[in-house]
C-alpha cells in the first residue's frame, strides 16, 4: 500500500507539474488581466505549433525556435488580443468575456492550422520540447522510479516560474498595478498608472507563460494537437480553482495533488474496470465540478464592479422590438414566400445529399433551442448541452433497440431522462452562477465524455446499434421526407414551449434575475426554482433534439455530433447568430449544418469564379467555418442578442424610418401654404 503510494508520488509529480504550469498561467491571466481565459490552451497550442514548424519542419536550431515561439510570437499574440479585444471588454460582464474566450478557443487553433498549413503536412513526426534529440531517462532513485529529462525540465521550470511570479506579486510594484488595472482601469489612471500599457504588459506576460507551457508540454503527446491542450487546460483550471484563482502556492499544491491522486487512483482501482480507465483521465473534471460546488470561497465570489464604469459611453440601444403593423405583415409575407419555396424544394426538387442535411438541420435546431432557453432566456452559459443531447440520443437508441419501445416514446423518455439529469445538475449549481457555473458544466461534459459515454450500457457496446426511425400506427417515418415532416412538428412544439416559457412567469422571473439578482431578490423573486426549471427544460430539449438527431442519422455519431468540443461550438454558433429567439436557433442550425456545404463549398467559390477570371477557387476549407463562427462569438459582448439579430433589427429600423419619412413628406407639403 505504502509502496503504491510512493510510486504514485514519483509518477504523479511530473503529471502534476504539467497541470501546475497551466494552473499558474491561468491564475496569472485571471489576476493580471481579469479574464477567465479558456483560450489559454489555444495560446499554448500556437507556441507549440510555431516551435514544431520552425524546428521540426524547417530544421531551425531548437533554442532559436523555442525562443521565437515563447518570447516573440506568444507575447505578440497576447498584446494583439488585448489591443483588439480585451481592452474594450473591461466593462463587459464576466460571462460575456468567457464567451469571447470560447470564440478564441475555436478560432485561434484553426487560424494557426491555416497559416502554418498544418492540414497539408500531418503534424506527426514527434512534437518537440526544449531538446532536439530523443528523451533521456534518469533513474536516481532506483529502477522502480524512472524520471525523464523532459519531466525534470517541466518540474524545474514550473518551480522557478512559480517563485518568480510569486516574487513579482510580492515585491514589485508592477504586480500591484496589474491588479489595480483589473479592478478599475480608470481609478488606476487617476492614481497615475498608464492602464493601457500595464494591461498590454499583463497580456504579453500571461501569453508568454502560455507559450512556455505549450512548448514544454508538447513532447508529452505524439503530435501537436489543440484538443490535447484543451483537456489539459481544464485540469489546470481544476488546480487553479483550489487557489480560488488568486493564490499561486495553492494552485501549485492543487496541481501536484491532482497529479498524484490520479496516478494513485489508477493503481488502487481494479485494473481494466471502466472506473479505472475512465476515472484517471477524468479525475480533474470530477474534482473541478465537486470543488466548484463545495468550495466556500468561490460561491460568494462575484465580480467587483468598476466604480467608474459609468464613464464609458453606454452601449448602443438595441433596435426597438416594435415595428409598425404594415412592416410586420410585409416581413411575414416575405418569409412565408421563402418558406413555401424552401418547402417546395425540399419535397420535390432536392436530392438525397441535401435531404440528409435538412434532417440534421431540423434536429440540431431543436438542440439549439435548448441554448435559447439556457443563454437567451436564463442568461446562463452551459457548456454541456452536447452531453444532454447525447443522453437523449443514447437513451432513444437503447430504449428502442434493447427494450423494444416505440421510437417516439423513446425520444420523449430520452428527453425526460436528460431533463432529470439537467435538473439534478442544476440544483447545486444555480446558486453559483456565472463563470463558475459554465466551468462546472464543462467539467460535467468532460466527465460524461470520458466515463459515461464509454459505458456499454450507454453506448451499446462494440456492436454500435442502429437507431431506428419512428413508426406510428401505419405511418412509417423511414422515408426521409416523411421524417422531415415529423421533425417540423417536433420543432414547432418545442418552439411553442420555448415561447410560452419566455412569456410566462418563469420567463419573466428569469428576465428579472438576468437584470439584477439583488433587485430581483428584493421583490421576492428567488433564483432557485426558476433557474432549475430553465436548466431542466433546456436539458430536456437538448435530449429530445439528440434523440431526433440519432434517429435522423440512424446512429449515434458521438464523436462527430456530441463531444465536448462540439458542445462548445454549439454555444459559439448560437450566441453568434442569435440566442434570444426561435429564428436565432434556426439560423444557428443553418449555419452549423449548411454553411459549409452550401456557402463555403459551392456558393462562394461559384461567385468568386464568376466575378473575376484570375483566381480559380475550389471548395473553401471547412476550417473557415470554425474560424468565422469563432470570430463571430467575439461580438457577443457587444451584441448579446446575436450579430444577425442585431443587423436584422437595424435594417428593419432603417426601412421603417424611410417609410415614416415618405409618409411625412406629403403632409408637410400639404401644410405649407
Amino acid at each position, binding site marked *: 500500500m505504502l509502496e503504491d503510494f510512493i510510486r504514485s508520488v514519483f509518477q504523479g509529480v511530473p503529471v502534476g507539474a504539467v497541470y501546475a504550469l497551466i494552473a499558474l498561467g491561468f491564475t496569472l491571466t485571471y489576476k493580471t488581466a481579469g479574464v477567465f481565459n479558456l483560450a489559454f490552451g489555444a495560446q499554448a497550442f500556437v507556441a507549440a505549433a510555431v516551435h514544431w514548424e520552425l524546428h521540426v519542419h524547417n530544421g531551425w536550431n531548437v533554442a532559436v525556435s523555442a525562443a521565437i515561439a515563447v518570447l516573440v510570437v506568444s507575447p505578440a499574440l497576447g498584446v494583439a488580443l488585448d489591443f483588439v479585444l480585451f481592452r474594450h471588454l473591461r466593462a463587459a460582464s464576466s460571462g460575456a468575456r468567457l464567451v469571447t474566450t470560447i470564440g478564441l478557443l475555436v478560432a485561434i487553433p484553426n487560424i494557426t492550422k491555416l497559416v502554418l498549413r498544418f492540414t497539408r503536412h500531418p503534424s506527426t513526426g514527434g512534437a518537440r520540447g526544449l531538446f532536439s534529440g530523443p528523451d533521456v531517462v534518469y533513474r536516481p532513485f532506483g529502477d522502480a522510479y524512472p524520471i525523464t529529462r523532459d519531466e525534470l525540465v517541466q518540474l524545474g521550470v514550473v518551480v522557478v516560474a512559480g517563485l518568480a511570479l510569486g516574487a513579482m506579486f510580492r515585491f514589485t510594484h508592477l504586480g500591484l498595478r496589474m491588479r489595480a488595472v483589473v479592478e478599475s482601469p480608470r*481609478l488606476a*489612471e487617476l*492614481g497615475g498608472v*498608464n492602464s493601457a500599457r500595464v494591461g498590454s504588459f499583463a497580456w504579453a506576460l500571461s501569453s508568454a507563460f502560455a507559450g512556455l507551457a505549450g512548448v514544454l508540454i508538447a513532447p508529452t503527446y505524439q503530435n501537436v494537437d489543440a484538443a490535447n491542450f484543451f483537456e489539459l487546460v481544464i485540469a489546470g483550471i481544476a488546480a487553479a480553482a483550489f487557489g480560488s484563482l488568486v493564490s499561486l502556492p495553492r494552485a501549485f499544491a492543487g496541481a501536484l495533488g491532482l497529479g498524484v491522486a490520479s496516478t494513485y487512483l489508477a493503481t488502487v482501482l481494479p485494473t481494466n474496470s471502466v472506473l479505472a480507465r475512465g476515472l484517471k483521465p477524468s479525475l480533474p473534471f470530477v474534482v473541478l465540478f465537486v470543488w466548484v460546488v463545495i468550495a466556500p470561497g468561490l460561491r460568494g465570489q462575484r465580480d*467587483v464592479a468598476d466604480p467608474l464604469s459609468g*464613464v464609458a459611453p453606454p452601449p448602443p440601444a438595441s433596435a426597438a422590438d416594435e415595428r409598425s403593423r404594415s412592416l410586420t405583415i410585409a416581413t411575414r409575407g416575405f418569409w412565408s414566400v421563402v418558406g413555401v419555396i424552401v418547402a417546395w424544394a425540399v419535397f420535390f426538387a432536392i436530392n438525397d445529399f441535401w435531404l440528409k442535411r435538412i434532417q440534421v438541420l431540423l434536429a440540431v435546431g431543436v438542440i439549439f433551442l435548448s441554448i435559447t432557453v439556457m443563454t437567451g432566456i436564463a442568461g446562463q452559459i452551459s457548456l454541456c448541452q452536447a452531453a444532454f443531447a447525447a443522453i437523449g440520443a443514447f437513451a432513444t437508441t437503447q430504449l428502442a433497440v434493447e427494450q423494444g419501445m416505440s421510437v417516439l416514446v423513446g425520444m420523449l423518455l430520452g428527453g425526460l431522462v436528460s431533463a432529470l439529469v439537467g435538473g439534478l445538475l442544476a440544483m447545486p449549481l444555480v446558486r453559483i452562477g456565472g463563470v463558475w457555473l459554465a466551468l462546472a458544466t464543462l467539467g460535467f461534459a468532460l466527465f460524461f465524455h470520458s466515463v459515461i459515454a464509454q459505458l456499454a450500457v450507454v453506448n451499446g457496446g462494440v456492436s454500435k446499434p442502429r437507431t431506428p426511425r419512428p413508426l406510428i400506427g401505419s405511418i412509417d417515418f423511414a422515408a426521409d421526407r416523411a421524417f422531415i415532416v415529423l421533425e417540423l412538428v417536433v420543432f414547432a412544439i418545442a418552439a411553442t414551449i420555448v415561447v410560452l416559457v419566455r412569456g410566462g412567469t418563469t420567463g419573466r422571473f428569469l428576465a428579472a434575475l438576468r437584470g439584477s439578482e439583488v433587485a430581483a431578490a428584493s421583490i421576492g423573486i428567488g433564483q432557485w426554482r426558476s433557474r432549475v426549471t430553465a436548466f431542466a427544460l433546456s436539458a430536456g430539449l437538448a435530449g429530445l433534439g439528440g434523440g431526433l438527431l440519432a434517429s435522423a442519422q440512424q446512429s449515434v455519431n458521438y464523436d462527430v455530433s456530441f463531444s465536448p468540443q462540439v458542445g462548445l461550438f454549439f454555444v459559439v454558433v448560437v450566441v453568434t447568430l442569435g440566442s434570444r429567439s426561435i429564428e436565432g436557433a434556426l439560423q444557428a442550425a443553418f449555419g452549423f449544418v449548411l454553411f459549409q456545404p452550401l456557402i463555403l463549398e459551392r456558393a462562394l467559390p461559384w461567385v468568386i469564379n464568376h466575378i473575376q477570371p484570375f483566381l480559380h477557387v475550389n471548395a473553401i476549407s471547412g476550417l473557415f467555418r470554425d474560424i468565422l463562427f469563432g470570430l463571430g462569438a467575439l461580438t457577443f459582448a457587444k451584441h448579446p442578442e446575436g450579430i444577425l439579430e442585431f443587423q436584422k433589427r437595424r435594417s428593419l429600423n432603417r426601412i421603417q424610418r424611410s417609410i415614416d419619412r415618405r409618409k411625412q413628406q406629403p403632409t408637410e407639403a400639404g401644410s405649407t401654404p
Partner: protein
Amino acid sequence: MSPLLELEAVDASYGPFRALFGVSFSLESGSALALLGANGAGKTTLARVCTGLVAPTAGSVRFDGVDFSDRRAFEFARAGIVHAVEGRSVFATLTVEENLALALASGRKRSELAVAIDEAYALFPRLGERRRQIAGTLSGGEQRMLSLARVLVDRPRLLVADELSLGLAPIIVDEVYQTLARIREAGTTLLIVEQHVSHALAIADTAVILERGSVGYIGPARDARAHVGV
C-alpha cells in the same frame, strides 16, 4: 500669472448623450471653487473633464498654461491633479496598504514610499490599525479617509473632490470638510462638487452653478446662495 486650471467652451458627451455645452471658467492657484447644480446638471461630467476621465469633444482644458485637452487621465494625475471620485474611490479588492502604495508610488523610491505611507498612518491612525484589511470592507467614512490620506501626504496642486458628503453621516461630513480645510491650508487648489450647498460654499471663494450642462452663475461664493435659493 496664468490661472492653474482653465476651461474654455468645453463640450462633452457620453456617446450620443451630450452633457456639457460650452462651459468656461478658470481657477486661480490656491483658491477654492464650489461646483453646484441640480441632479443631472453635468457636475460630475465637468469634474471628469477636469481630470481627464472624459475627453472634451470641443473646447480646451489648460492646466498651468499647458493644453491638456487630448491627454489621458494618468497624465493629468502625474501633473499633480487628484480626483476623489463620487462613491467608492478606493480599490475594493486591495488592502489599505496596497491602496496607499498605489496612490503614493509615483515619483517616489521604495524607501520614500514607506515613509510616505507611515505619514498617512500618522495622519489617520485608524487606517494604520487596518492596514492589512481589504479596502472594500472599510466603512464609507474610512474609505473617504483612505482617498484623502493620499491628498494630505502628496499635497497635489489641484484636488477635484466629487460629492464627498454622499452617503456619509453628518458628523463624518464635518470631519471630511475639516480635512479639506487642512488640505487647502497646505497649498492645494480645490474644486469641490457638492449637492450639499452650505458646506461647499463655506469653504469656497468662487462658485459655479451648472444648469442643464451650461454655466448658469459664476461669481463670488457668498452671492451664490441667493442664486440657488438656499
